[in-house]
Structures are given as structure tokens and as C-alpha cells.
């Protein structure tokens, strides 16, 4: 009996995320179009709703081109190694309300261990294509993902410290309940939580190679990075892996800082938790798309500077701030101490990181003759 229930759950979760992938790929194009004063896809079906299906058919029947000098085995394996771990990540997200698949005691560790496998997939894709742009993109991707894993793990440790567990389900339980009857006890509503949430969001953007950190496939210099020689369904798989990565990263942010399936108001608790979870997840995915439409890409040295001189120190300070908050009991003293520490650290880091290169003030003359 439990086998049936588990399979049912797996079915629901996989269907949901596959559907979300289709919807998100359409939504991304629609939202981008709206932000850019365009209409976006509107030919297939009502309002272009069937565009993902058309895209899927196109991808499936497209010729699979493999360069002659390419390493065929690795070229074939890379998309699979990309997608498989991302799918595994959905297994441990705490959807709540009985939909949670597995409550691993080492859930967070599982998350990072499995998601780090995608780095190898990127390498396999880049190297096996036998294309200089591909190798270049793969090297950038590996450097970027390895670097941003450091602040990502450091930030994810803060809620672990406060909740006292690596289990994501336990962490969501720790954020249940409401202060003064209305304000939810989410970690994001604490000084270290808001900083941690923002850091986690930024680092997951970088881990998923999204704008403004999409250097590995930066089309203006590297054509398409490690994806240059991919076409057809293999390319679609990479695309899917990237999206699944975004979903999983957003799910992690929801579980760690946004209270998982908790309702924002006690009044709204009749809505089942998994719906709340998915609503929060979809909102985060929307923000990711919004960011893509509005920010230019960073350069590789600026990316590394931001990581090692900005995010990593800030993540460490955040760890200390969380400890201070925890031991000061979380009242107004906590806000002053932890908040003051974080604001001070931010201002100092801001000076260091930003002042290094830019001189902001520029003078322009208007010559009359």
C-alpha cells in the first residue's frame, strides 16, 4: 500500500514540475516580451498557450547534430547527467501536507551533494564538443559554480544552526506559528534571515547560470558556451536541467527562509501547505525571469570579486549574526545587535568591492565652439 502512495506522490511531483517547466518556458518568453514592449509567442493556440508543446515537438524531431571530432559517448551522456540529479532534488523538498516524499535526516547535505554533480555534466558537455567556445564556457561554468557553492553552503548553514537540524522538514516545522498572532515566524523576517535569503537567491542565480551570472553561456562573447554544439532534444534536456535547477533552488529558498508551506496569515491556514509552497516557488521563479529581463551580464573577474570579496565575507558575518540573534533571544536586542552587525558589514564590504574599480563621478564638458 505505501508503495502505491509513494508512487502516486512521485507522479504528482514529477507531473507538477514538468508542467511547471512547460509553463515557465512560456511565461519566461511572455514576461520578457511584456517587459520589452513586445507580445511574445501568440500564434500557437489561444494566446500562444500551446507554444511549449510546439517547442517540444520541434526539439524532438530536430536533427541531432554531433560534431565530427566530438567525443560521442560523453556528448550523449552529458545532458542526462545534467537532468538526473536535478530531478532527485525534488525528492526532498518539504512540500508539506503529506506530499513530502522523503524526510532525509541529512536533507540539506543531500541537496548540495546531488546538485554538485551537475558541474561534471557541464564539463562533459563542454569538453566532449571539441569546440574552443565550449571548453571556454565549461571552464567558466566550473569556476563559477565551485566558487558560488561556498557562499551558498555558508548561507544554508545559518538556518541549520538555528533550527538545529539538517532536515528540511524539521526546518519548516521550526518556522511554523505566528508572532503576536499575525506575523509568521519565518526566518526571512529576522535580520540574518533577510540577508541570508537574499544571499541564497543571488548564489542560486549564479549556480543556475542565470542573468546576471550567465557567463558560461554568455552569448555575446562565447556564442553559447558549453551548449554551443548541442541541438535538438539534447539541448532541450540541458534547458530542462537548468530550469529544474532554478525550481529546486527556489524550493530550497522557500524551505529554508520562507517558511515552507506555512501560510503568511493565520486566516489563510485553510489552504493546504503544498499550495502555499508552490505559490512561493512560482513567485521566486517569476522574480528570476524578471531579473533576466533587466540586468546586464557581469564580467568574469567582477563575478569572482563579488563572490570572494562580497558574498563569502557577508555569509560569514551572517553566520555570526544568526548566532547573536539566537542567543539574544530574538527580541529587539537581537534586531539591534544582529542588524547593526550586518548593516556595518554590508557598508564596509560595499566600499571595498565597489570602490576598487569604479569612479562613478564623471565630468562632461559642453564645448561651445
Amino acid at each position, binding site marked *: 500500500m505505501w508503495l502505491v502512495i509513494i508512487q502516486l506522490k512521485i507522479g504528482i511531483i514529477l507531473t507538477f514540475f514538468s508542467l511547471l517547466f512547460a509553463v515557465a518556458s512560456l511565461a519566461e518568453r511572455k514576461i520578457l516580451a511584456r517587459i520589452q514592449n513586445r507580445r511574445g509567442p501568440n500564434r500557437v493556440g489561444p494566446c500562444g498557450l500551446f507554444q511549449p508543446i510546439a517547442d517540444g515537438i520541434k526539439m524532438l524531431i530536430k536533427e541531432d547534430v554531433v560534431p565530427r571530432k566530438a567525443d560521442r559517448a560523453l556528448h550523449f551522456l552529458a545532458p542526462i547527467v545534467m537532468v538526473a540529479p536535478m530531478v532527485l532534488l525534488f525528492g526532498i523538498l518539504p512540500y508539506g501536507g503529506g506530499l513530502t516524499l522523503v524526510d532525509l535526516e541529512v536533507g540539506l*547535505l543531500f541537496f548540495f*551533494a546531488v546538485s554538485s554533480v551537475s558541474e*561534471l555534466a557541464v564539463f*562533459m558537455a563542454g569538453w566532449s564538443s571539441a569546440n574552443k567556445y565550449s571548453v571556454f564556457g565549461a*571552464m567558466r561554468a566550473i569556476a563559477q559554480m565551485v566558487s558560488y557553492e561556498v557562499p551558498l553552503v555558508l548561507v544554508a548553514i545559518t538556518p541549520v544552526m538555528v533550527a538545529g537540524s539538517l532536515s528540511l522538514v524539521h526546518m519548516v516545522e521550526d518556522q511554523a506559528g505566528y508572532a503576536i498572532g499575525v506575523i509568521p515566524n519565518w526566518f526571512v523576517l529576522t535580520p540574518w534571515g533577510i540577508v541570508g535569503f537574499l544571499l541564497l537567491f543571488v548564489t542560486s542565480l549564479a549556480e543556475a547560470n542565470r542573468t546576471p551570472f550567465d557567463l558560461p553561456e554568455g552569448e555575446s562573447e562565447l556564442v553559447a558556451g558549453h551548449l554551443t554544439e548541442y541541438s535538438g532534444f539534447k539541448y532541450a534536456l540541458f534547458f530542462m536541467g537548468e530550469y529544474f535547477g532554478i525550481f529546486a533552488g527556489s524550493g530550497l529558498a522557500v524551505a529554508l527562509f520562507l517558511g515552507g508551506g506555512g501560510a503568511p496569515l493565520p486566516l489563510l491556514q485553510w489552504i493546504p501547505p503544498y499550495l502555499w509552497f508552490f505559490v512561493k516557488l512560482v513567485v521566486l521563479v517569476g522574480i528570476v525571469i524578471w531579473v533576466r529581463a533587466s540586468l546586464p551580464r557581469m564580467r568574469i573577474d567582477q563575478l569572482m570579486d563579488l563572490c570572494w570579496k562580497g558574498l563569502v565575507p557577508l555569509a560569514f558575518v551572517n553566520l555570526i549574526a544568526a548566532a547573536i540573534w539566537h542567543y539574544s533571544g530574538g527580541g529587539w536586542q537581537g534586531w539591534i545587535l544582529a542588524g547593526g552587525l550586518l548593516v556595518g558589514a554590508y557598508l564596509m564590504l560595499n566600499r571595498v568591492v565597489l570602490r576598487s574599480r569604479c569612479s562613478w563621478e564623471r565630468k562632461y564638458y559642453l564645448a561651445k565652439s
Partner: protein
Amino acid sequence: MNVVLFIIAALILVGALATVCVRNLVYCALSLAATFAALGMLYLALGAEFIGWVQILVYVGAVAVLIVFVILLTAPDRMRSVGPLFSRSRILGVGVSLGVFGTIAYAVHKSGSLKGSLSMPAETDMQSIGEELLSSYLVPLEATGVLLTVALIGAVLFAREEPVEGSEESQESKD
């Protein structure tokens, strides 16, 4: 249960064999990653959940990726290398290895204390691991922390590029 262990053990050995014998360095590194992953699976199957995932995180996610990165940096064109695969001392090396293996295998086979079966895994929840780390294993933990920091600084110092003559600096002074 034992069947699963044997399958994983076979995976580990096949992966390790491929790592040692394959000519292409990239294949070596990737089969090394597969070996690491299989080892992680073995730890999981043996009930060491935490170690299993740490193994995958550290070895597959970091060490294998680093090795691959260094292969890319050092031999971009020579990955499909020509020339002999093994060094001149190959016969001696294999002999030494076989000798070591024979010794260990003999000891394992003859030892009386190893005849017993595996006992049930001890209770290792995360809470107790954390408490142990910060109480009885505090000094090793701190020492490891210091070691990792020193290794980090050392690696950065080693890998840092000395400014090459005639690169940016002289370019700037030219203007």
C-alpha cells in the same frame, strides 16, 4: 542486502580499474568520479548516511571537478595523448602493488577476528555527530580547520600567476 553490497563493490572495482588503465585523462577523471560516487553508495548501504553524502559532496562535487579542471588547464590539446601510457618502472610498480595486495589479502583471509558478520549500525543521528564533534573531537576538528585554511592559502599562493613580463603593467606604462 549482501547482493546490493556486492554489486556496489563490483562497480567500485570496475571504476577504479578504468581509472587506472584508460588512456584518455578525461575518461580517467570521470571514471574516478564514478568510483567516488559508488563508494558513497557503499557508505549509504552500510548505514553511514552522513559520510556517504559527504563523500559525494566532497569527492564528486569538489575533488573530481578540481582534477578535471586541472586536466583542462594543463593539457588542453594533449588529452588524446600519444606515447607510452605507463612509465619505465611499470613492471616494478605492478609487482609492488601485487605484493601489497597479496599481503593484505592473506592477512584478511587468515585473521580470525574478521570472521564475524557485520553488526547493526550504531545509532548516529546528526545531533550526536554534532555533539561528539564539538566535545570529544574538538581538537581534531580545530586542527582540521587550521589545516584546511592553510591548504587554501597555500593552494592560492601556488596557483597564483606571477605577473608575466610585458603583460598589463608594461602595457600601462607604455601609454
